[in-house]
């Protein structure tokens, strides 16, 4: 502590001897730099140990025939075989890609539309608006759980609530979760049902839109539809962009519901085989870890590319009213 004692003297007038100033951690930027790395060290360790190194290791393993049962010693380098197999020799893989893309392409727009619609309805101040907002948000907290996936399974099974509802209209439903044509649909509904998080973010965005803009629009003779397209949407575009990126990434990771509803199989007939579920099956039930790591890398690159596409195209439609805040 003696080295820092000069720093504890009130004010800076007290000259410290040159020698101690140079040697110890001293005052000012140098010492703050050291402190910075001290505080950063857990995160840095995690970045290296938990994120970077495992990922690089897995990149290496993706070129091998590694399986969890073997030790690292009898690894065999098989080059690009895993990657080649994915795209040319594994129909299940390509099927999983297709299922995931369909799932994301339908879930994300529906979810964001529901989120924006409800957010706009809630974007007034009246007594009790907070209760509505909270209750619409609730599914986002609960929906990712196993419990809700089980409920979904029961609700869309032959004797579930959905068919009970249909029977009121004289329609005899089927078991939606066991039909390859509709099983993915039930997952999509479960995904859309959790529109609360993007809704809350839209709501915050809507509050930022200056009301003068609406007034100006209505003075210029714009009706509700026009002011939605020409005021609300452009002003909301940064928030919409954020939600679009986050929800797309989330949609690509819909593991829990698919796993539970298909009982870990991706069935019926692979209709709910989302990418991450197939990854899990390859890695942890068929022990083809080398292949699974290759799949994880393709997944990562794909998500990176999609995000990059969003950011490049975003420049043309995302409108920042306050300069370059982001």
């Amino acid at each position, binding site marked *: 502590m003696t080295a820092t004692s000069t720093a504890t003297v009130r004010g800076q007038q007290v000259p410290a001897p040159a020698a101690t100033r140079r040697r110890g951690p001293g005052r000012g930027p140098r010492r703050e730099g050291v402190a910075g790395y001290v505080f950063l060290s*857990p995160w840095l360790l995690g970045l290296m140990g938990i994120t970077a190194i495992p990922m690089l290791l897995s990149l290496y393993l993706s070129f091998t025939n590694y399986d969890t049962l073997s030790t690292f010693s009898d690894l065999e380098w098989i080059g690009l075989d895993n990657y080649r197999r994915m795209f040319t020799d594994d129909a299940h893989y390509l099927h999983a890609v297709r299922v995931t893309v369909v799932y994301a392409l339908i879930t994300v727009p529906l979810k964001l539309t529901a989120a924006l619609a409800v957010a706009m309805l809630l974007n007034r101040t009246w007594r009790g608006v907070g209760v509505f907002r909270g209750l619409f948000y609730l599914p986002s907290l609960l929906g990712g759980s196993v*419990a809700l996936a089980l409920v979904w399974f029961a609700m869309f099974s032959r004797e579930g609530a959905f068919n009970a509802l249909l029977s009121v209209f004289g329609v005899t439903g089927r078991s939606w979760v066991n039909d390859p044509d509709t099983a993915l649909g039930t997952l999509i509904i479960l995904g859309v049902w959790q529109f609360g998080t993007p809704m809350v973010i839209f709501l915050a965005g809507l509050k930022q839109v200056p009301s003068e803009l609406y007034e100006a629009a209505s003075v210029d003779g714009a009706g509700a539809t026009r002011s939605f397209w020409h005021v609300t949407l452009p002003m909301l575009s940064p928030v919409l962009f954020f939600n679009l990126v986050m929800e797309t990434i989330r949609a690509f990771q819909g593991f829990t519901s698919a796993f*539970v509803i298909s009982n870990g199989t991706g069935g019926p007939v692979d209709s709910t085989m989302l990418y991450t579920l197939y990854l899990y099956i390859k890695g942890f039930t068929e022990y083809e870890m080398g292949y699974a790591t290759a799949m994880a890398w393709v997944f990562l690159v794909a998500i990176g590319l999609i995000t990059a596409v969003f950011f490049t195209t975003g420049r043309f439609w995302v409108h920042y009213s306050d300069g370059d805040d982001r």
Partner: protein
Amino acid sequence: MNRSSLAIRIPVLLVMLAVVLYPLVWMLGSSFKSNAEIVNNLSVLPREWTPGNYREGWSSLDVSFGRFFVNSTVIAGLTVLANATSCLVTAYAFARLRFPLRKFWFAIMIGTLLLPGDVLIIPQYILFKYLGWIDTPLLPLIVPKLLATEAFFVFLMVQFMRGIPRELDEAAKIDGCSPYAVFRHVLAPLSMPAVVTTAIFSFIWTWNDFFTQLVYLNDLDRYTVPIGLRLFMDSGGQTSLGPMFAMSVLSLLPVFLFFVAFQRLLVEGINTSGLKG
């Protein structure tokens, strides 16, 4: 856009809310129905309320469901502590200290925010297996949280700290506080709202987490609530539907209570991290 529009808004919202809440109400109602009624009674509410499903669900598996609750609580509790501390420390460095490469590391941190967690599961599993941690599941589940790997919370706290007036730490510095003392006496206490938000979200996410727990928890004795719930599915058949609903309701109860108690904090947490002012 005027007062009369409320008269349209509220009925529309009520109808939408009914649709959105229906699955939850149906689950709750069914959990009190007898097995015969679950199939035959189309109404949401049971004709006869029976707690039998709860009794059966709690004890019908080889291990009491209480065990799963204890395990989940331990894991969620430790995660909360680990996340709150490590992310607070990291956020302080990013929000307040100037050190070489700060911008670079911050960009990396934002990058990991977009990194899909599911991609990391297999690489991490391989590492933990290599380290021999697979037989002590607490290590793979908790150690990453001690190392601030949840960038979402780091970001949330950085955003919060940026809102704390710099004059406060400048004053402390002039009074001779080191960066460590500024953290301990100024930034950490003032960041408590963000810490609470982090704690609640970590609890809920860990409580609901399925993928990582599925990978690392292989002994029935160590199962958590989500993994245990799935056993009702394995046994199949209509007979276990009632207990399954009952345990599902119980499993959601802690999350629901957190929601009721901290609703505003949760919504604000989504906002501060979701976008900047």
